[in-house]
């Protein structure tokens, strides 16, 4: 097997060759090797051949195709496959052939296709004979015709053309390769003489896909290419076949040659322009294109290496890219920020090393041990005060530093001072300052850098003077001390709180306020003051401290605290902050709890909030909080609580359709009941009745029912007319609100009695339905507890008596009018002959009275049957008898 760089043929790099024999660099034309024309020449073309024309024959005009010509005449072929010669001047209707072909012969072939002969075969044979005559005139004509035929995808013509076999094979191979018929192209290529046709490497390149798939042809292809080993494309092809390497220059030349040979309009997805710029940059050793990284992993690595050496943009690299790269490139990539290890790459080789160099905190202990990362092991041991591990670590600058810092942290300043040499720069100064302060037992020696380093405060705090005035003087003279002094005072205040030393806690917190400057520390000091004051019973001072803390920015904790301390002394203030918390607290649970607490305080306070009027209104912030909360994912009990409140205090909003849209309780029973309550009382009772009637009636519904019934019964006073109360009771009854029998009987009884109290019998009478109501109530007597039965029964008796009396009185009043009517009629008809009395008119006039009397008799019968009092029964019976009598008289009068 010959490698590309093992062949040499002088002049083989040339693109010039003899078309006839293929010899490279044929010299002048004809070829010095074969004596034939070495390259194509332009051939002259006839203007007439291939044109259509007509001639007159025996009084008729015939049209044909010009197939040959002389200086003075032309030969025409007719559709019947006959020919005729005619003088040039006799030709008429000359239609020139289409131009475009290299040769007249192909022009003739093309033109013949447009003729419709009688016999196509015969006609084609005729044309062919003339075509052959034309192409056989010279090799140039033949060559031109061959190119035309292949351009027109008619390779079969080449077998009839007088060209050399190798030329035919080369032309056909090139043609097939251009058409993508690689197998057929290869077959022709492999027929070529091995040392001829140097540019066949382009054709082979075109067929590379087919070549790679067919190993059986590789040896023969190598033999075809080996003579042209100086050509870069040939070298590249052989390298591919042999899987060996080339030098950079050869690679670049081959790539450049290919880039030059690809037409601009070729549809390729490969970034050819970028590749061309890359090749050019590499050949000229100039600046790489910025997007070189797009050309693949190796290009990225090279661009990175280039960036390391001479600047320029460093592409992003992955661990996969660096797999076979030198480790120094990985370090360079890290330092250039070009290497990122993703979570998915965590287990890749070198990932831990990269993380150790970029983000050591994500590594686990085992990773650190594996990497022998002593400095980080020491740091972590130091942070968790693990002296044992620190001591076990190997001696080194960093681990020594941490050992000495650990000593310093525990007050062993001598040990720390002894290790100063392992520190540098600012850290060394801080260590020295801190060690000196500890050695002297005085904060005076601590530098400002140490004082403003909060991590040193637990160590320095014990050095602060206890005397408050000394401390104040020191803080005033050294502002850097304020932070640590405030922190110590705050810590001291809390320690005293835990010791139940309220005065001590108060004192320390106030001391903190003297020196603290940042708002958060001051707020906490005020919070501690509030706590101590509250424990001491000074609620007003506690509230004042918290109010001050709540100015500016504040925490949820402060809002909760003022809600606690202000609840009794200033419930409105507490409620205000709880209302804010109900809107602003970070968790829904806290917002709900704050709203509930605020509602409790509001309900409990007899004084109205947020208004100068005497009537209560729902505070705005709380109202807004509730509007948001009822649409949030709160628990059902809270939803019921809030909507119940809103149905009374924010009814306009709650009653509007769609207000609960988005709530998980939208469409729920509670939503229906309370939205109904917001809109209309009767609708509310009806909705509630429907819920209470359910077998699984929720507790809130039965509570609501009980409240309603309780309120109704409380309002109903049998001694006093109260239309609103009786109307209330009647709504509950008529809407069928389910309730216990005892409550129902009470409600019916008191409502009926109340209604009767409102009625003036001289003007109206109770409807008979009240008798029905009492009768219905009486049906439930057996449901009443035994010990209450007598009372309930008595109430109904009383109610029925009131109804009976009122009805009876009303009827009595009305019956006197009836008596007057009777007497009046009697006077009119008395003495008038019976046959002269207008009976019809008489009956018509007395019918209402008769109806009244009949109805009265019926009602009295009903009442008598239900009244138990004997006196009343007697009176009613007597009245009934009177009515009967009167009715009898009327009937007699009407019929006589």
């Amino acid at each position, binding site marked *: 097997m010959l490698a590309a760089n093992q062949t040499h043929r002088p002049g083989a790099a040339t693109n010039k060759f003899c078309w006839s024999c293929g010899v490279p660099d044929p010299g002048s034309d004809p070829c010095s090797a074969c004596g034939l024309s070495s390259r194509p020449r332009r051939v002259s073309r006839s203007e007439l051949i291939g044109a259509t024309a007509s001639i007159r024959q025996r009084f008729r005009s015939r049209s044909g195709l010009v197939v040959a010509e002389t200086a003075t005449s032309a030969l025409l072929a007719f559709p019947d496959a006959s020919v005729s010669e005619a003088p040039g001047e006799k030709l008429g209707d000359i239609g020139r052939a289409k131009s475009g072909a290299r040769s007249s012969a192909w022009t003739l072939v093309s033109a013949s296709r447009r003729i419709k002969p009688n016999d196509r075969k015969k006609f084609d044979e005729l044309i062919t004979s003339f075509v052959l005559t034309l192409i056989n005139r010279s090799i140039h004509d033949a060559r031109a015709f061959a190119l035309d035929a292949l351009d027109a995808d008619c390779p079969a013509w080449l077998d009839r053309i007088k060209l050399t076999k190798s030329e035919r094979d080369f032309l056909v191979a090139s043609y097939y390769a251009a058409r993508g018929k690689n197998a057929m192209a290869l077959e022709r290529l492999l027929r070529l003489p091995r040392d001829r046709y140097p540019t066949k490497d382009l054709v082979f390149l075109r067929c590379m896909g087919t070549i790679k798939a067919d190993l059986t042809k590789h040896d023969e292809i190598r033999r075809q290419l080996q003579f042209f080993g100086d050509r870069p494309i040939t070298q590249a092809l052989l390298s591919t076949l042999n899987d060996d390497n080339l030098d950079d220059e050869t690679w670049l030349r081959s790539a450049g040659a290919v880039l030059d040979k690809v037409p601009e309009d070729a549809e390729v997805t490969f970034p050819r322009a970028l590749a061309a710029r890359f090749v050019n940059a590499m050949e000229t050793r100039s600046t790489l294109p910025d997007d070189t990284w797009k050309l693949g992993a190796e290009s990225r690595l090279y661009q990175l290496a280039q960036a*390391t050496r001479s600047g320029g943009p460093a592409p992003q690299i992955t661990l996969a890219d660096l797999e076979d790269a030198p480790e120094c490139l990985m370090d360079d990539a890290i330092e250039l920020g070009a290497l990122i290890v993703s979570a998915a790459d965590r287990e890749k080789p070198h990932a831990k090393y990269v993380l150790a160099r970029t983000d050591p905190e994500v590594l686990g202990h085992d990773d650190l041990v594996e990497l022998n990362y002593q400095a980080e092991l020491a740091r972590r041991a130091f942070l968790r005060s693990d002296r044992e591990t620190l001591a076990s670590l190997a001696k080194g600058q960093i681990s020594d530093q941490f050992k000495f810092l650990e000593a310093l942290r525990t007050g062993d300043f001598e040990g720390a001072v002894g290790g100063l040499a392992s520190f540098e720069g600012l850290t060394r100064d801080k260590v020295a300052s801190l060690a000196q302060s500890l050695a002297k037992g005085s904060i005076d020696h601590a530098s400002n850098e140490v004082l403003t380093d909060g991590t040193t405060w637990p160590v320095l705090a014990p050095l602060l003077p206890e005397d408050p005035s000394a401390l104040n003087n020191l803080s005033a003279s050294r502002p850097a001390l304020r932070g640590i002094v405030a922190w110590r005072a705050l810590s001291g205040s809390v320690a005293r709180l835990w010791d139940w030393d309220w005065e001590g806690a108060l004192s320390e917190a106030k001391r903190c306020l003297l020196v603290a400057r940042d708002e958060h520390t001051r707020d906490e000091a005020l919070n501690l003051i509030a706590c101590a004051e509250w424990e001491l019973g000074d609620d007003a001072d506690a509230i004042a401290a918290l109010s001050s803390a709540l100015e500016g920015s504040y925490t949820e904790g402060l809002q909760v605290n003022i809600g606690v301390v202000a609840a009794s002394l200033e419930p409105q203030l507490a409620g205000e902050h709880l209302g804010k918390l109900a809107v602003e607290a970070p968790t829904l649970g806290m917002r709900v709890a704050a709203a509930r607490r605020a509602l409790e305080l509001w309900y409990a306070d007899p004084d109205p909030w947020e208004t100068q009027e005497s009537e209560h209104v729902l505070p705005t912030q709380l109202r807004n909080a509730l509007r948001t909360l009822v649409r949030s994912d709160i628990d059902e009990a809270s939803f019921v609580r809030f909507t119940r409140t809103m149905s009374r205090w924010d009814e306009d909003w709650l009653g509007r359709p769609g207000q609960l849209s988005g709530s998980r309780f939208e469409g729920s029973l509670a939503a229906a009941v309370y939205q109904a309550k917001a809109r209309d009382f009767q609708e509310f009772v009806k909705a509630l009745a429907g819920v209470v009637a359910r077998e699984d009636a929720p507790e809130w519904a039965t509570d609501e029912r009980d409240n309603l019934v309780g309120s109704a019964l409380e309002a109903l006073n049998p001694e006093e007319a109260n239309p609103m109360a009786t109307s209330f009771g009647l709504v509950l009854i008529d809407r069928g609100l389910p309730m216990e029998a005892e409550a129902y009987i009470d409600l019916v009884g008191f409502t009926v009695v109340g209604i009767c109290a409102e009625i003036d019998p001289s003007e109206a009478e109770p409807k008979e339905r009240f008798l029905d109501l009492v009768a219905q109530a009486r049906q439930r007597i057996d449901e009443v507890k035994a010990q209450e039965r007598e009372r309930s029964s008595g109430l109904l008796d009383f109610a029925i008596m009131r109804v009976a009396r009122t009805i009876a009185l009303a009827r009595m009043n009305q019956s006197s009018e009836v008596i007057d009517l009777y007497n009046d009629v009697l006077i009119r008809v008395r003495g008038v002959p019976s046959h002269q009395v207008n009976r019809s008119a008489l009956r018509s006039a007395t019918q209402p009275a008769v109806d009244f009397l009949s109805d009265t008799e019926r009602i009295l019968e009903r009442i008598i049957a239900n009244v138990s009092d004997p006196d009343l029964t007697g009176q009613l019976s007597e009245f009934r008898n009177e009515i009967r009598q009167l009715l009898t008289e009327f009937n007699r009068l009407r019929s006589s």
Partner: protein
Amino acid sequence: MDERRNPYVILGVPYGATRGEARRAAARRSRELRQRQDTPYSTEDVTWALHQVEQVIDDPASGVEVFRVPAAPGILDAPSGHGLFNPRAVPMARRSGPLTDEAFNGIRHRAVASVSKSVLAALGPHVSCWPPDQEEEGST
């Protein structure tokens, strides 16, 4: 919950203490109370306080009625930023030396070979081979 009694102050733990911390504090308080006189709270108060704290742990929303000390979590801790006693992690030092010329040239070579092979593979099937070169000028 009683108006004045603060379960966290009774136990001596900050608001937000864990169940374990609360229990340990309650045990400590109980021991203290056996030795102290004239204290504002009794062991019953300590028991109540522990129960209240556990209730808040189980239902954080119930903490809306408990005075919080501290009001801002973490305020009592020393500043948590980096400093002398809370140093940042120092990235590990580089293990390798600089890129040698030999290594650089090797990388260059691989890049050239890789790109050239890609060019041949991607564009080779598209090189123009028809009509063959060398037609006389002026030919169609």
